């Protein structure tokens, strides 16, 4: 069954944001790695993954309904 997530790509990764970012279709069990591949984001540029505000990683599985945030290395103060 088709489910949807919201996906946000930030900073230098912003250019890979899909038009359907607010309601991006996924099959339950899709991993963040699958998602990154689908969007054409170079894996080496991905540093931080948040799923509903909690740190995830590329193996994290998505079941629909999540808010996913993906960042390159960022820092400031």
């Amino acid at each position: 069954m088709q489910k949807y997530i919201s996906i946000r790509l930030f900073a230098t990764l912003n250019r890979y944001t899909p038009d359907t970012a607010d309601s991006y279709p996924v099959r339950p069990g899709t991993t963040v790695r699958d998602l990154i591949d689908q969007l054409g984001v170079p894996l080496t540029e991905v540093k931080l993954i948040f799923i509903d505000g909690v740190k995830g990683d590329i193996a994290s599985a998505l079941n629909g309904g999540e808010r996913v945030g993906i960042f390159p290395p960022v820092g400031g103060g």
Partner: protein
Amino acid sequence: MDKILRINMGPEGAPKASEEPIGQYAGLGGRGMTSAIVAKEVPPLCHPLGKENKLVIAPGILSGSQAAQSGRVSVGCKSPLTGGIKEANSGGQGAQVIARLGYAAIVLEGKPADDTLYKVVINKEGVDIIADNSLKMLGNYALIDKMKVEYGEDVAFVSIGQAGEMKMSAASVAFTDPELRPTRHAGRGGVGAVMGAKGVKVIVLDDAGMPTRSPKDVEKFKEANKAFVQGLRKHPITGEGLPSFGTNILTNVINEAGALPTNNFQSGRFDGAGSISGETQSDTMKARGGKVKKGCHRGCVIQCSGIYNNKDGSFLTKRVEYETVWSHGSNCGIDDLDAISMMDRLDDDFGLDTIEMGATIGVAMEAGLAKFGDGEAAINLLKEVGKGTPLGRILGAGAAVTGQAFGVERVPVVKGQALPAYDPRAVQGIGVTYATSTMGADHTAGYAVTANVLGVGGSVDPLKSEGQVELSRNLQIATAAIDATGFCLFIAFAILDQPDTFNAMLDMLSAFTGEPCTADDVVALGKKILDYERDFNARAGFTSKQDRLPEFFKKEPLPPHNTTFSVKDEELDQVFNW
């Protein structure tokens, strides 16, 4: 840099300047110098605005040399805001110029007999202390414009605005940037009020004819500096993230982590985060002909600053930093970058700490003085501060006083100083730093956001208490040492992740001073500085009871994670147990 300049504002007749050898303070710089002088010379129970307090301005150990990134200056005193020791750190040109003039510290002492306002002019010939009441109640921008006419553009200025003259506890000391704009500030703890209490409006620093400071081992230093610069350039945060988006690159990531304090610390998520983010800010700056990469001092290779223009293309302010975008933005429910940038400009002009003022306006909004989200009302509140109306005087005294004056319970302060831009319920490690730092709530004192959120220097779960005390302890020690070197703290991203860059930094220090410098030496230096500060605070009356967050952080769950601050008091008491 082997002498100390003391300027006594108190003697009968006129203020007097005297130079003395560095003596017992040899080898110290930056925060090490300011905290040592304050701990040894200032009576801890003195009134911060009285004659016994001293304002110490000290460049770092490497400032004034060819070392990249070494333009940080420390301003220390007993704080009118916290009642404890204070070191407020700033960029700008001041550190380099003071160091080249040969001074390891400039110390303002005593209390003037009347309310005459002075300018202090320092050049290679010596020191002039000149009464000039025409400078009274000028903002920093107008003041610097006037000073440029008198002293030209090949100088640097250290100054206070109206807030410092009115001795407000949120007043900053301004340092001019390479374009001679007063955009860099030793912001925290009311250091500007102490400068105002000394009757000094501006210090003019002219290093014409003074050489760059040279290292003991020229070749080794050159090589280490090169490796250090390469390390900063290759690290993705210092080499790409910070120059492209500034420190405000953090708005989106802290919002995603659910830790962006919103509406006076009522939520960790802000719906308007995208509109005030570093990404939007950079696009806006480019579209208006601003500048996206710029250093705050010469010799900066990170270049996290920039120019933010008005809609008509005229200069408004520097690239507003994350701490200001957060404090005047999400913390007040404001999603308008132009309003936030205007408040940054006003803070710089009046000479105010942007963190304290944003937190204060958040508390004022909670009290009903304005509505959350109303940028125009927030700007008007800030203008009250600049004018020194009775309301402005209350706001200019900071968040704690404002909360008390208006009967607000949710007041985000530790030791009287406002919390910065990371809610400790969703970044528990930074909560440990806020609670225990000698400075009052201060994110830079031990920036646990690195391992808690950014994946730099390891990884510690931000929502749990485990590992936070050790993380904060190690960062507080390392930071105290870095604050003594003159290096910008942002080198931490590269030196925490890249051992070769860390080693290059050690090599720079040892090649410059001619003394060995190992990782253990850095740790020992950091501990020594913290010991000075803890000792001063203990004598000023601080106990472990002041090393605590306000009660609401332990009781009110923070959305979206609905967590409270869970590090126990007994654990907090172990931070300085080394």
